């Protein structure tokens, strides 16, 4: 997986950018495309986005660093975002976090030795009704208990193994 994005996708973004008044609209889409293909967005990914859309690198980096779901550093195969905002905190997010850290053997900001999981805190995921919540990839998991977490981790590990 050395290329940031397949050429046909780059061409498609170029064509879309040329057809609209504000190519900046496509920054996040393109960054996400790079991220899903490459795993994260390295500096070259920021440059590629700028060149593809015909905008300044600084304009891309401003957005890339603003959103915590765009990864500007290498991450594991799955990134776990644990909500630490008010509803989750009041329904046991700290206990959930502790369980995750213990079962993965890592702290926030770290990646497991096998490269499977990266653990990150997150601001509100919009799942207050299902608090405490976490998000892995595009899936949100709510009303979390330690048992559920163990099951989810098993399932995600299996998915990673299947993908390989």
């Amino acid at each position, binding site marked *: 997986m050395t290329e940031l994005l397949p050429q046909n996708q780059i061409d498609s973004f170029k064509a879309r950018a040329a057809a609209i008044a504000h190519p900046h609209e496509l920054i996040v889409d393109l960054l996400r495309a790079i991220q899903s293909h490459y795993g994260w967005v390295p*500096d070259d990914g*920021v440059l590629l986005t700028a060149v593809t859309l015909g905008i300044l*690198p*600084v304009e891309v*980096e*401003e957005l890339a*660093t*603003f959103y*915590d779901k765009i990864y500007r550093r290498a991450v594991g195969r799955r990134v776990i975002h644990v909500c630490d905002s008010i509803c989750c905190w009041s329904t046991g997010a700290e206990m959930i976090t502790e369980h995750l850290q213990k079962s993965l053997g890592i702290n926030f900001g770290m990646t497991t030795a096998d490269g499977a999981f990266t653990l990150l805190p997150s*601001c509100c995921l919009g799942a207050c009704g299902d608090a405490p919540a976490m998000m892995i990839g595009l899936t949100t998991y709510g009303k979390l208990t330690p048992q559920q977490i163990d099951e989810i981790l098993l399932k995600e590990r299996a998915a990673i193994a299947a993908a390989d």
Partner: protein
Amino acid sequence: MPKLTIDNLQVTVAEGTNVLEAARALDIVIPHFCYHEALGAVGACRLCAMMFVDGPVKGLQMACMIKAQDGMVVSSTDPDAMDLRRHVIEWTMINHPHDCPVCDEGGECQLQEMTVAGGHGVRRYTGKKRTFSNQNLGPFVQQEMNRCITCYRCVRTYRDYCGGSDYGVFGSRNRVFYGRVQDGSLESPFSGNIIDVCPTGVLTSKPFRYKTRLWDLQEAPSVCPHCSLGCATVPGGRYRDVQRVRAGINRETNGFFICDRGRFGYDHVNHPQRPRQARVDGQPVMIDKAVMAARQRVAEMAREHGPNSVAFLGSSRASLEANALLRDLASTTGSTQLVFEAHHGRDRAARTLVARLGEHARSQEDIRQSDLIILFGADPLAEGPMLALAIRQAVRNGGRVVVIDPRPVELPCAATHLPLAPERLPVILTAFGRGDLNAFDAREREFFASLIEQLHSARRPIMVGGADLLGDKGVDALCSAAAELSTGARSVGVMTLLAGPNSFGGGLLAGDGPGFDTLLDAVHEGRVHALVCLESDPFREAMDPARAQAALGRLQLLVSIDATPSLAARRADIFLPARANAEMAGSYINNEGRLQAFLPVIDPGLPIRETGAGNHPPREFFQETPGSAPEADWWLLAQLLERSANLAEVRKTIAENDEVLAGLLSITTETTGLRLTARGVMPLSAEKPPLHAAAVGILTLLVTTAPVGSHWLAHLSSPLAATEPQPYVCLHPDHADALGLVAGDRARLTTHSGHCQVVIRLSAQMMNGLVLTPQLWDTALEGMRPGSLLDCRLEKETKA
């Protein structure tokens, strides 16, 4: 004109004024960070809260976001407003370090002031503060991100106002970071402005770092000497050292900002080789002795060989007072051999502009308000950087910009560019003015037909010219075109970039006197035996330096008055050390005819860092400050004339002798300057053009100026040294292809004056077929005169 009540005081303000400004008009200062007059209001910092008690708006509001309206009753002292401000400043201060004693902003920190004004005294927050790694932003700006309060002023200045493209704001929440994508020098030629606008010590001046607290700094209002625009500056000095320059405020010229050349060009004042000692025949003497010797020898020469055997050369970097006194000295001597610029083209262009500009004169503020700006042979970033910034503001307000120039004129805004051969510019201007499209080919005809249409529908159009490329004929044609295209309802403006801060003054004083090349002929032919040089270096500034050096070698007497290590100063029989602009009071006339005064910041003297060489200065006792001999240029000339050397009296005498300069009696640094209405005299048309050099090749070379490196005073300033380019030539990519050259190649440039190794640069914006190279001081390109067209050869260097 809305009338409102603020803190029980009534005030009437202009339509559109915000309440924060209205309060300021009553001397009520509301704490604020994000609001800046030039940047506008965004209501982001939440600090300028005021209580709107009665009228069209009610409740607690941000004063910067509310336009003043009739009947408003506003309180700045309302308990709720004060409580909100106190909390906002406390939040703002949460992450701010307690490092004021080691912070360069200390003593002039808006955050310090606003914290006190906002009523926050004791820190309650005991948690950890967020910290950052700093970036290296290059030679000018020092970053210390931990101090940041995220007011966004730097980004709004750098990106929005100045058009920079390599600085931004990253992250979110507590991680907000202002900087570049990667470490590296800030690319904008206006980068230093973020030092001025940062309300605290995040962005400070790198050359000024750890030098002086504001309260130890001597400051005075001044006028920038680094181009002809006459921007307001405030230099600061201490320990006989000019240490920094910050932007002054003049709403008619620069507004609130200045360019980096003006900001970091101050160091010529402290140049280690600056001659500070008066000399006669190589012997150091007291300055009075040297003045007396000069006076006597000039008189002797006039007696022996006739008055016209003494010639006088003024300068665009000398004060108006000194140049006017030089004219008096010439007339007292009885000599008509008087000129104010050694560069033939610049001299004639300045005189022509002064003679023709009249009511078409436009200021930088007029440029900012213009809706159509057409640049003919003007490259603002090199010839007057702040003009580029003014043009950008016009574009931000919806104006359009058209560039007609052989060079790849870069601007910090969108522009339409038509590359045309430089020698065609005067003809094109004439044809454009008359609406005569026959002078153009099919493609150009369409371009100019559309341009004329745009011009007719524009309400405040301005035509901008550059003296170097246009020359006298082009400037004349520019003014004629503006006159012809003006209608009763709307006048077409003109702004022309000249060479120096007082080029206009020189053009005004020059009358129909000879050009410098005519004077050189007279020296060569043995008719002129003596030359008095006022802050000019004819050895290096004349059109053909080799010829000038040969001719000037025949002089029997060379008197030089200068503040820089020029060749004239070194070779002078009698040398009189002058003060630099930051060391004296005086005045310049800028390129729109605006007479502006400046005041001294420090007295001359060898900087203590030099006399002390890093340690305590010597403990010997002197009655005089070392290196303090230099006197104001007008002081020296008044002494030569045996007149009172009191500035008020000098100005009075000048004004009495020449009513055109009556404005000298009333100018102060408090005003935006005085636009002169008087016109000068066109240069003699019979004068021969400069010698055309022998053909040495088939390529045509146009000599240009670089933003840094082509301007003598800025070249002498060490903080700018890192930004001076190596000798280069710029080619159109197709042309380079044909010559077998690529970008970055080393090549040998041959002109009539010799060879030079240059690096190849490419630009698709420039005219195909032309070779562009900047004049650069103290390089092999030093002898090139900006604006000249030469034959040249260009050969790729093969590595031995």
